[in-house]
């Protein structure tokens, strides 16, 4: 399993807005550079991108949860 880490502290979102579906669901293919979530830091939204390709497994943090820099946000099978 490869993990996607948050580069910054903030609030994690699994979807672009409450009306949108989650960026990824279990079984989705993930390419390098795919957005898997957003971290809101000081009112700025930063797209969190996959650095490895694979198959999406799960989010490790709930939508809207506080995260720290370096925290694992999601995992995927390489």
């Amino acid at each position, binding site marked *: 399993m490869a993990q996607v880490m948050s580069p*910054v*502290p903030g609030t994690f979102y699994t979807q672009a807005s409450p009306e949108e579906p989650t960026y990824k669901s279990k079984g989705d293919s993930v390419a390098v550079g795919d957005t898997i979530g957003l971290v809101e830091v000081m009112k700025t939204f930063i797209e969190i991108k996959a650095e490895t390709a694979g198959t999406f497994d799960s989010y490790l943090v709930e939508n809207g949860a506080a995260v720290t820099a370096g925290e694992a946000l999601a995992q995927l099978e390489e």
Partner: protein
Amino acid sequence: MPIQRMFIANRGEIAVRIIHAAQAMGVHTIQAYSEADADMLAVRLADESVCIGPAQAAQSYLNVDAVVAAAKAAKADAVHPGYGFLAENAGFVRALTAAGITFVGPSADTIDRMGDKVAARQAAQSAGVPVVPGSKGRLETTDEAVKVASEVGYPVMIKAAAGGGGKGIRIAQNEDELRKMAPQAQAEAAASFGDGGLYLERAIQSPRHIEVQIMGDGKDAVHYFERECSMQRRRQKVWEEAGAACLDEETRKHLCDTAVSLAKAVNYVGAGTLEYLYDGVTKEFFFIEMNTRIQVEHPVTEMLTGTDLVQEMIHVCGGGKLRQQQSDITRSGHAIEVRLNAEDPLMQFMPFPGQVTGLTVPEGKGIRFDHFLYEGYQIPPFYDSLLGKLIVHAPDRAAAIDLMVTALEGLEIEGVKTTKPLHLALANDAAVRADDFHTQWLEPWLAAGNLTSTR
């Protein structure tokens, strides 16, 4: 009855500012904080503090029920909202009123009236304040918008009637563009604000942003002159001055007098600001909106006029009469404020929450630093990036800019990136020194690489 126990429903530098003002008046302070803010300076300074919820602002500082319940439990007789969060939320004011608690600001009805752009514009017009030529009321259809645009002249600006903070603003250069943009603006306004009403006005090219500080006690009102706040990035003010050196005395008097007329016409209570666009070529100014709260940049006005605006608003909102007549309020010298944000200006202003490992604050005549930092403070990532405001006051504008350079050089906030390099570059820029800029100036200046080249 004068306020005795004041609850502060805000955080950061403005909470610290309010505590200092209240304590100087002998008012007991009760500071609200979220779980992420237990270590903030305002909590340390206040007489009491109370946790109001989790880190996310929606569950703490923006949670009307939680804030009102906490204020009630703390036996507060008043709540100061600061700026942002619930400062202009009429529902919050009504909930406080129902709980028998004074809101340090205007009435819910005034907030409602001034928060609706169309209603605010009508109030301004009837008080004799010039407004940008535009629609008389709400527009519901594209054809109506096209008809109004042909009367006021292109380019036109389309805004949501219920909007704020620049959201949903579009500029159409001609009828074709307007016909495309109006339905989009309407859909966006309906989605964002639950209200698809639009209004439209002439877009003023390269305007200055000038604003007037007013204070009212419900019957009488006074002004504390104007501020120049054209230096903006993404519609956020970056550098603010008092007064506006570009105004002649006659224009200044007209601007400030009409602002007072509007404040009196709405029986305004507390501190407020009327914002205007100013066309330096024609010397015309046009009202755009009123902010019914104390503003971030209030210190430049305090330096210019020698009045503590936060103490004055606490006084009038506690039922006191204005303590100064208009003729008592005079302006002296020139003041400038810069906003120190936890952002890296050399990396597209990327937010930089971190730990303050060292802090050196410049001191001296005419230098003031409003902030909430201390050595070892961990800046939380959940709120905006404003760390503090460096303010200088000197006999004239050129001297104030020189003093700003000295003050910036003496300010060290270690452990985090800040916007200090931006302000040093601005203070040394020829156009800034010549007072030759407008609201559309800073972004192209940054895009042209002026910041990296002066590093």
